[in-house]
């Protein structure tokens, strides 16, 4: 199934807002670390509902925020959630970014990078569009160390790349990005029921759920264009 078919269906079901609510628990911390200056041009790869671009405009004073998504329905929804003139959305693919060389100051991506058909190619594209000193804030919940995420592939038709933290660092460096930071950002907001309620529909034990959210959380890798 194509990215377009899979995620157009998600958007039609309103899953874009559900993801925004859940991802925001950690994404807000990621966004607040970005060295965005007033007037900067920022890009959100796999923008879904588009919350990141809106946040970088409001909180960091970005001059223009663009969200790119392979699903026309996602961008259509995202566009309907804002009337900020300086936020824009485009339909595009991670493998062929429709932006000029050195045209972007900073790139953010949450829970989307690993859908790239060719992640190494996507990193090269990111390098091409970032200006020197521009950062790529790459946040994922699906990665090797997070064993609780491994089963997600069963529910998604699009093939996902499951790298370890080390593989992220290595791939960034191989593409020529410097790695500035890597961190696990805990989700301290998802509610975890008392032990007596386990097993739940999704979780065998409370320990597993605590580990997934409070310990592994979101893996952030920050690359910077030399």
């Amino acid at each position, binding site marked *: 199934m194509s990215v377009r078919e899979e995620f157009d269906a998600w958007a039609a079901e309103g899953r874009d807002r559900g993801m925004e609510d859940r991802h925001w628990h950690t994404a807000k911390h990621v966004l607040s670390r970005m060295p965005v200056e007033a007037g900067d041009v920022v890009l959100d790869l796999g923008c879904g509902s588009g919350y990141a671009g809106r946040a970088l405009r409001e909180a960091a004073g970005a001059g223009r925020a663009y969200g790119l998504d392979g699903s026309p329905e996602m961008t259509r929804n995202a566009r309907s959630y804002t009337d900020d003139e300086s936020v824009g959305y*485009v*339909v*595009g693919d991670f493998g062929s970014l429709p932006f000029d060389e050195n045209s972007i100051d900073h790139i953010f991506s949450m829970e989307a990078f690993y859908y790239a058909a060719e992640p190494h190619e996507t990193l090269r594209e990111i390098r091409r569009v970032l200006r020197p000193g521009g950062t790529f804030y790459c946040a994922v919940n699906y990665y090797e160390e997070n064993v609780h995420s491994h089963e997600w592939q069963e529910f998604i038709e699009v093939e996902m790349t499951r790298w370890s933290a080390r593989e992220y660092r290595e791939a960034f460096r191989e593409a020529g990005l410097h790695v500035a930071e890597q961190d696990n950002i805990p989700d301290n907001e998802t509610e975890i029921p008392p032990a007596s309620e386990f097993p739940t529909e999704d979780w065998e034990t409370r320990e597993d759920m605590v580990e997934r959210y409070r310990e592994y959380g979101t893996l952030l890798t920050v690359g910077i264009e030399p």
Partner: protein
Amino acid sequence: MKESLLDIVCCPLDKEELDLEVDEREDGEVLAGTLTCTECGETYPIEDGIPNLLPPDMREESPA
């Protein structure tokens, strides 16, 4: 889309400049139109204010 996007947007295939043809405007935004690559001639539709810059082989045309 705002026309200011043209500053930084390019053809996803050969990364060359795009020409804008406007069919419909509203409040300073382009709601419908076409972006054409000045180099390879490939065209990209703008629908409901959103440019579709997928590589053409990944695009599914909506029924006319």
